[in-house]
Structures are given as structure tokens and as C-alpha cells.
């Protein structure tokens, strides 16, 4: 596995407030990497540093082996959360301007702009002013702008924030489509389910520190089970806790989450519950990303 984006011991402060504390990320090439964290965790700061628009206090980073900010400009495309565009310009002229800034000549800039407009399904809006577009369309135009020049790394800062579900879904489908062209995508979001749905690996930040990083399938514990059960009694719970294979037990109103010490004892546990006349509605093996996240931020 090659890592296209690497940060090493990055520190960033805003006055007295430490936004990043020694963050060392490793983002695999060609994957969708989710950046998770509560508000103020440092996601936007790390995105700003990687995209070359924010200075950092200590540490270093590289993208495709390049360390200097001027070398990484054409490697990275950024879709910021609050994309501000030239509202008086037409979509096509808006993209042509940025394409020319990236070094395309007049004809090539137009061709490239039309290509990315097709990619984000805004080809029919090319002659409409940016100000006349809906919120979702402007977000897609922001995508188009970031895709000019086919960057190796695409950074998305909360791309579906504030969008209605159907548009958010179309954005997620677009992201999955872009992955097919071997673009590495860094996806920052609060929405854990969205991250779990489309990301291959994640990094979880909290209070400026990188707490966990890795492939989602590796991070989620497989030696645990979540059971939704009716008629749960205290005596039954006590007996489960005493079982030799139980490492940890969390009980909810009508649910149980049991982590096993070793191996998978799901069948044994389910048999025990049935033998005690309890009704099992459903069960799910493994820990959810939400559980991991809430555990890390201390809100479980």
C-alpha cells in the first residue's frame, strides 16, 4: 500500500488554542479516506494545511513525495465547505478562469471546463450565471472547479453538509465514481454513516490529536455482537457477565452489546438468551463506526 499523503507530527495553533497536536496521517493512494471528528477536532485545519492554504507551526507533510507548497498546488483539488464563487460569471466562464490560472491556454481551458461540467452533471447549466444556481448545483460547481486538471488528491470538506438527501446521495455517487479514476479522496464529515458507507479508511481526530487511523474493516471489532432483545432481566445480565468469554457488556433499554475476550461466541450467547425465554428481535456482529467514534470522543 502506498501512501500518497503523509503528514508527520503536524502542529498548528491559533493564538493560544492548539488546533493540531502532532498529527501524523497516512492516506493510501486511490482510496477514499474519511476524516472524522467532532467540532473543533482539527479537521478543517489539517485540510487547510494539506491543500497548501494554511501555514503550520511544526512538522512536515508531503503529497506524492512533494513537500513544497508550490509543487503541490496542481496535485490537489479542494472543495471547501463554504465555497464562494463568482456569482456574476457564467458557470463556464467561472471554470475557464480557474483553468487558465492553472496554466491551460484559452482553448484547452474551455475544453477542460466542459469536461468537468459533464462529470458533475452541470453541462446544461454552462451558460447560466453561478448566482442563479441552486445550493446543490453550486456545490457541484465547486466540485467541478476542484476537478480541473485532474488532481491526484481531491479534498472534500463536509461536501454534503446542508444538502437535501437526494442531492447528498448524488454527491456520494459522484465521489464513488471519481474513485474509479484512481483519485485519492479525503472526505471530512460529521456524518458517520456516510463515512462508513463510502470510505475505505478513516482517521479520527479529537482535540487536535489523531486518535485512530486505518481501514474501517480493521478498526471495527469483529469479536463483539449487538443484540436487540425484549424482556431482558437483571439476573440474566448478571449470568452473562459471569460467562468466561465475556470481556465487556453494555446494556441498553432493550439491547445488549457484548465484547468477547477471544473468538466468536455469538451462537452460544444467542442460545443462552433463547433458553432464558427472551425474544431476540435482531443481532449484529461487530462494533459500528458510531460506537468507535463515540467511544473515542468520550460520549458513549
Amino acid at each position, binding site marked *: 500500500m502506498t501512501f500518497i499523503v503523509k503528514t508527520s507530527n503536524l502542529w498548528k495553533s491559533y493564538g493560544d488554542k492548539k488546533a493540531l497536536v502532532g498529527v501524523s496521517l497516512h492516506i493510501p493512494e486511490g482510496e477514499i479516506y474519511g476524516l472524522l471528528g467532532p467540532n473543533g477536532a482539527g479537521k478543517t485545519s489539517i485540510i487547510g494545511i494539506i491543500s*497548501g492554504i494554511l501555514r503550520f507551526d511544526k512538522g512536515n507533510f508531503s503529497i506524492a513525495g512533494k513537500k513544497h507548497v508550490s509543487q503541490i498546488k496542481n496535485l490537489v483539488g479542494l472543495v*471547501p465547505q463554504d465555497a464562494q464563487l463568482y456569482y456574476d460569471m457564467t458557470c463556464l466562464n467561472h471554470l475557464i478562469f*480557474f483553468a487558465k490560472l492553472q496554466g491551460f491556454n484559452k482553448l484547452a481551458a474551455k475544453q477542460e471546463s466542459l469536461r468537468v461540467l459533464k462529470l458533475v452533471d452541470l453541462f446544461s447549466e454552462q451558460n447560466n450565471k453561478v448566482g442563479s444556481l441552486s445550493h446543490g448545483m453550486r456545490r457541484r460547481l465547486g466540485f467541478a472547479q476542484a476537478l480541473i486538471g485532474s488532481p491526484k488528491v481531491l479534498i472534500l470538506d463536509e461536501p454534503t453538509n446542508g444538502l437535501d438527501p437526494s442531492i447528498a446521495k448524488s454527491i456520494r455517487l459522484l465521489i464513488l465514481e471519481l474513485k474509479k479514476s484512481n483519485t485519492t479522496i479525503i472526505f471530512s464529515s460529521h456524518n458517520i454513516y456516510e463515512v462508513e458507507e463510502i470510505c475505505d479508511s478513516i482517521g479520527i481526530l479529537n482535540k487536535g490529536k489523531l486518535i485512530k487511523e486505518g481501514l474501517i474493516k480493521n478498526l471495527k471489532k469483529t469479536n463483539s455482537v449487538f443484540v436487540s432483545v425484549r424482556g431482558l432481566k437483571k439476573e440474566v445480565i448478571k449470568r452473562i457477565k459471569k460467562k468466561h468469554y465475556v470481556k465487556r457488556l453494555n446494556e441498553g433499554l432493550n439491547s445488549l452489546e457484548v465484547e468477547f475476550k477471544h473468538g466468536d461466541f455469538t451462537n452460544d450467547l444467542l442460545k443462552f438468551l433463547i433458553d432464558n425465554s427472551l425474544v431476540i428481535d435482531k443481532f449484529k456482529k461487530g462494533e459500528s463506526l458510531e460506537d468507535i467514534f463515540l467511544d473515542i470522543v468520550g460520549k458513549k
Partner: protein
Amino acid sequence: MNFQTSFNQSKIICFNELKQSFKNWKIIVALVIYLVIMFASLNLVDDLQETLGNVDFPGKRDNIDVYDNIRENFGSLSIIVPFSLALIILPFIVLFMNFDSISNERNSNRFRYLLMKTDLHNLLLGKFFTSIIILSISTIFFFLITDVHLHFYLGESFNFSSLFYPWLFLIFYGASLSAFFILTSSFFKSSFGALAGGLLGMFALMIFSSIPVVGYFGLFSYLKFAVYSSFGKALLSVVMFFVLSILYLFLAYLKIRRSDL
């Protein structure tokens, strides 16, 4: 990034800024006010021409004809009066055009987008050249119309060559003002703050121009050369305006680089 790429990027930003400027009502208003005041001064010139022709200057008795002296070195009085007016009103016009050149971009978060594609110095130069182009076109337009007006109204001969030096002086003066207000704009994130900062900065420059060492950094110190009937000293002013433009832009560059966007 090499010089060619840098030049191309500054040019692209400059052309984009020009297009955006003329969609912006405040630029149009500023230019209209500038040109109306300048054209209105032509009536003043006509009256002054008449008055000066009849007044017995002390210099005249001593065989030093002040009016002839000015005329020889600076062109006709019809250029001097609007030129002098321009020296006074140009700071306000340029302030109005440039006060939020940086703060507006930061406020709208476009700054981040632009800095992903180009370097900060290209962005600053692009904005700076936009201002110079707008000032150049409006000023040369005014001087040309004035000369045509004087030819047909007062019977004066066309004297386009006498337009060049006042025009050049005003352009460099306006350029240094533009650079100064780009610098003040870089300190603020809001447009209101940038306007207040620009006004305060301008008044500070006026006050400091009389202070010995500090005055050298104030562009108004070099205005006095404009009214000397000496081409050499006026040229020195032009050089100083150029140097100050570079200094102010460099300071703006340093200020923005050290800030978080």
C-alpha cells in the same frame, strides 16, 4: 514558479478583476465623480486664463513671468488646474476603488480558492495592475478630451506631448496610492474595517509627511515636487512613487502571508 508563468497568472487575474470591476457600481461611481470634477475644472481654467492674462504679477515686473514659466515646463494652465485637482481627489477615488480589494476576497472566502491555483504575489500584482489600468484609461481620456476642448473652444493648438508628463505623474501617484490601500485592506477582514483603516492610513500619511524620517515613507511628501516648475524634481517624485508602490505591496504580501486565511 518561473517569471513567464507568474506574469501570465497576474495577467489573468488582472483581466478578471477588470471585468469584475466594471460590474461593480462603486468603481463606476468613483470614475464618474473623478471625471465630472475634472471636467468641471475646465470652466475654472477658462476663468483663470482670462484673469491671469490681465493681472500684473510681481514676477512680470522683474521680467520673470510665472505663468510663462509654468507653461513652458508643465504645459498650459488648462492642464495644471485639473492636474492639481487630481492630486487632491485621487486619494479618495483610489481609496474608494481599492479599500476592500483584499478584505472582500477574504470575507467571501474566495481567497482560499484563488491561492490554491496561484501564488499570493500574482494575486496582489493582478489587483495592483487592474487599478493602474483603470486610472490610466480614465486619466488619459480626460486629458485628451481637455486638449480637444481647448483647441476648439480657446483656439489653443493641440499639444499632446504636454499631456504625457502630467499623465505619467498622476499614474505613478495613483499607483502608489493603490498599493497603499491594498496594504491597508490586508489588515482587515471586513469591508467596513478596511474602509476605516484606509481613511485612517491616508490621514496618517498626510500628518507624517512633515516628520523628517518617517515622511520619506509617506507618498504625500513627494507631491510638493509636482508644483515646482522643475521637470527633474517631478521625475524624482515619479521614481519615489514607484519605490513606495513596491514597498507597500511587499508589506501587504508579508502581512497576508503571516495571517491565517
